[in-house]
């Protein structure tokens, strides 16, 4: 049953060295506070899974926490490249990482198969594309009814998934709205799920019945972290901090600058700092 916990404890109780972990969010509701807590606790040898790795995986890779990444777009959304991830892939700094690369369709289908308890996902994909030649986890199956050759990828089953969402009710049910991305599938595919939320409300009685709600018994722990997805955005709460994404390009371009920035802005901070980070963005939302 779900527990309401401080983020530090929620991360400590649910993440372990060597885990496969998904911090999901599709440009919206990215669980930055949870990722920063994982960085402070110094986990090692993680397999990082995410469709669009962006800043938080650049940070974890740059801190040497990842042994492998599974992804479909390793970019800084709207800005360009991820420089710490590149340094790791191109130069093995601070350590070499294993790369398992898919397309968005491949990852989305693999999460859905994980949520559905299936061993693999089947879809019409990767035709003529080079990824199948460099990723041994892209195979093909023949439809037993039509003979059509289709792509098959193993389902994604993370040890733990972290997401950020707008709100929980007092029982621990969680509401996600706006661009809902892959979050529901990532939670249901995982063995354990931890959710950070902007706020807790008494109940969801005033919500439309068709909204995306994760029932409390699908979640291990909830932590209340206002602003917890900064510099991404939380629909209805605060806007994307575009300047931060642009600034990241410069910070991550230099190994020393990166370490110094991480020390001041992650290592020496805590989850309570996130509310202040989004104060100026709440007006713009």
């Amino acid at each position, binding site marked *: 049953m779900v527990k309401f916990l401080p983020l530090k404890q929620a991360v400590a109780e649910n993440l372990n060295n060597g885990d496969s972990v998904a911090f999901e969010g*599709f440009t*919206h509701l990215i669980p930055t506070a949870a990722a920063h807590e994982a960085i402070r606790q110094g986990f090692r040898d993680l397999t990082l899974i995410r469709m669009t790795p962006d800043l938080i995986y650049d940070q974890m890779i740059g801190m040497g926490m990842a042994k492998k990444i599974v992804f479909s777009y390793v970019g800084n959304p709207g800005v360009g490249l991820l420089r710490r991830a*590149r340094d790791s*892939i191109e130069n093995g700094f601070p350590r070499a990482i294993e790369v398992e690369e898919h397309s968005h369709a491949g990852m989305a*289908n693999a999460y859905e198969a994980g949520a559905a308890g299936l061993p693999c996902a089947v879809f019409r994909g990767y035709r003529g594309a080079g*990824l199948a030649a460099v990723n041994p986890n892209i195979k093909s199956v023949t439809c037993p009814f039509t003979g059509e050759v289709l792509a098959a990828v193993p389902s994604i089953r993370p040890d733990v998934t972290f997401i950020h969402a707008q709100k929980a009710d007092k029982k621990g049910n969680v509401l996600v709205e706006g661009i809902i991305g892959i979050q529901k*599938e990532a939670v249901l595919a995982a063995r354990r799920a931890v959710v950070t939320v902007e706020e807790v409300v008494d109940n969801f009685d005033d919500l439309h019945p068709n909204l995306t709600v994760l029932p409390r018994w699908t979640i291990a722990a909830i932590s209340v972290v206002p602003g917890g997805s900064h510099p991404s955005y939380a629909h209805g709460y605060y806007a994307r901090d575009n*300047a*931060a994404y642009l600034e990241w390009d410069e910070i991550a371009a230099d190994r020393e600058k990166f370490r110094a920035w991480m020390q001041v802005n992650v290592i020496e901070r805590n989850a309570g700092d996130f509310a202040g980070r989004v104060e*100026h963005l709440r007006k713009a939302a």
Partner: protein
Amino acid sequence: MSEFGFTPNEMMTIAASRALRNDDVCFVGIGAPSAACNVARLTHAPEITLIYESGTIGTAPDVLPLSIGDGELCETAVTTVAVPEMFRYWLQGGRISIGFLGAAQLDKFGNINTTVIGDYVHPKTRLPGGGGAPEIATSSKEIYITMAQTRRGMVEKIDFFTSFGHGEGGDHRQRLGIDTAGPTLLITDLAIWKPDPVTKEFTVVSLHPGVTRQQVQETCGWVVKFAEALDETPAPSELELNTLRDLQARTKAAHEGTGNKKAA
């Protein structure tokens, strides 16, 4: 700004916008494709359906999104669906008429690389990768490509097949069991290109105002074929140019408001 009163990039975006129809259902990439699709929506194709891979269907943003998941796209959409549904029901289901892609490297058969420069395992430059593009390229009924011409970008041989265009040309798509048309249009900052009906090699069919054949060849890494009846792309109209510039000015103003040099 050229002596014509518009930039090559503006000409590219406007030429691309003209290729879109009111009844198109368009899977939109960020950057020039996004600008072109929204100019089309704000001028001759007000009912065009724009879809971004974050799940927003029928979106009508007032400003251009910074990334495919901006809140503006959701707020102005007819509906927003989860990412698996986007790729399964809408793209794979065959409901997209135009997939609009950019490229880091492009070859003359419309094959696209956005994955690596150099060797895959030991890349010279690791690029972001395919994202939605590998399946957009094969499941959309047609593909439009837009990019600024450079010899580094338009190459004889791409380093990695991120998205399959016409492969080695001819009937290569059909031989792989792909039943969609693939790249049917390439719009650069200098010219409009269409595939040869038989060989599928991109051929210049129209030069933008003031552009010479020599300029097109100098900025392209393969030997360029020109159509016998070569057109000149009509210059942007005042309406087209004003619509694009207003859109870009609104976008700039909106995004300046979000930053005060704080990062995370």
